[in-house]
């Protein structure tokens, strides 16, 4: 793919990804990733210090599916949803069948009986695999949150 096409492909995937989560189609979420994907949620401070742990840390797609079924069938929390607001992907760099990109985001949280509130801001540090004509899958996504402070809990994935 050409640079501009790649940029568009990444943007479209990001938009569909955010919409799936915000529309509560969480079952679709693992499908954006390759089977041997890596997904973690960490903070800027941990990231720059090179600390490996995440508040979510998954090294295969099965773990993402388990997150979703955990949320649906096991975990107890007050009903809420997210609204992702995505920036344009920056630094889109193709390398063979891989593409790296960084996309800043803000996520608002809408909890029962409460106004929308800013929940998390951060940046997706991504590596995509080109899997088709204009099809990308996320091979690696590190969600680097700007703050290390999380309010109450983080149940729904970012």
């Amino acid at each position, binding site marked *: 793919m050409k640079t501009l096409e790649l940029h568009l492909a990444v943007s479209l995937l990001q938009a569909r990804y955010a919409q799936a989560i915000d529309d509560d189609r969480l079952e679709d979420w693992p499908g954006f990733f390759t089977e041997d994907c890596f997904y973690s*949620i*960490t*903070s800027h*401070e*941990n990231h720059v210090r090179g*600390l*490996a*742990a*995440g*508040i*979510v*840390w*998954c*090294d*295969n*797609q*099965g*773990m993402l*599916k*388990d*997150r979703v*079924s*955990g949320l649906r*069938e*096991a*975990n*107890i*929390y*007050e009903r809420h949803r997210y609204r992702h607001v995505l920036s344009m992907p920056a630094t889109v760099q193709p390398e063979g069948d891989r593409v790296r990109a960084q996309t800043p985001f803000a996520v608002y949280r809408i909890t029962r009986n409460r106004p929308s509130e800013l929940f998390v801001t951060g940046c997706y540090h991504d590596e995509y695999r080109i899997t088709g004509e204009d099809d990308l899958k996320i091979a690696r996504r590190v969600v680097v949150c700007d703050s*290390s*402070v*999380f*309010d*109450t*809990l*983080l*149940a729904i994935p970012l």
Partner: protein
Amino acid sequence: MNDVATPAAPGRTWPDEGLTRIPYWVYTDEALRRQEQQRLYQGETWNYLCLEADLAQTGDYVSTFVGETPVVAVRAEDGELYAFENRCAHRGALIALENAGRTDQFTCVYHAWSYDLQGTLKGVAFEQGVAGKGGMPPGFDKPAHSPRKLRVATTCGLVFGSFSDDVPDLEDYIGEAVLGRIRRILGKGEIEVLGRFTQKLPNNWKLYFENVKDSYHASLLHLFLTTFDVNRLTQKGGLIVSEDGGNHVSYSMVIPDERHGSEYRDQGIRSENQDYTLHDTSFLQGTDEIGDGITLQILSVFPGFVLGQVWNSFVVRQVLPKGVDETELHWTYFGFREDTPEQRTARLKQLNLVGPAGLVSMEDGCVGGFVQRGIATAEDERAVVQMGGDATSSSDTRATEASVRGFWKAYRRHMGL
């Protein structure tokens, strides 16, 4: 001892039933909150400050809190650890503005008063004035104007501080039974920090600390534990409560071929769901690295330290009040320097169970808030804490609230309530 002449909570009295009833005003009373700062956090308690690993070299420091008091912990030139209030002796500004760092002295940014690594005031900018004018009066005693200093003690690589000269030695304060369970984990080797996160909780700190001690809720609220046999009340395990009630250990073990009892199903308890299976079972395949079969151990030291093991994941939690209905939970995820790459990966995977997004622990972030909102106008009502009778003693069942009552026993003694 505490000044018990002043009531900790004017106009309030503890219910006659004793430790089996908790009056709800303890979670909402502003006067009580201020008294806690003096009687608990600045009283005869040891408060977790940081890991010794955070203060490895001379000049390494950490800014943290004892209750709501900002505190600096540091390693000085003599190799010893010191801690002092993070409050400039001049006008009260914070002395250290970073969470952690390395320095050879501390200088307040406001008017540049400076402190050595032991927290003693060493320099006053323009102390002699300028060109013979101004300056401090002669004979100003700098060391006498240092910020308040804490006693510091360490055990098993953990650093604790106390404002009290009368508090017992740290290891006596923790008690041998609980200390043995700290050694069980931290005796394994040199700690390697894997990550740190902070969780804001919308509730009084005591609701969280009680939750930690509440061995009764764990397998009822957290489905992950129950279904995957990490923890069931019917599993072999037990509860240790320290003599004074403040410190505790709850633990359980999985016996590999144990048949599922029907206790949960018989009672129709929600957390029993035999149909629930994982796509990726690798993350719950723990190894018995300590060699005693214990797969879950939660341990607390009054008033704000928690050490947790779930399979092969280890965390330290520091519980800090931030007002009457707000609490911060500082999570430190750790492993050990000598971990193999496989052990490290196993820990990173199993850490999915804990923390603000923990498959097990995320519920604990909510329930305190549910109580805080539930008791909005119930100051004169009380909670019932009667599982297992009225004892505060160790037991071989976890279907008891003994360690919650133990917490209140210690709390009331410190507070003079």
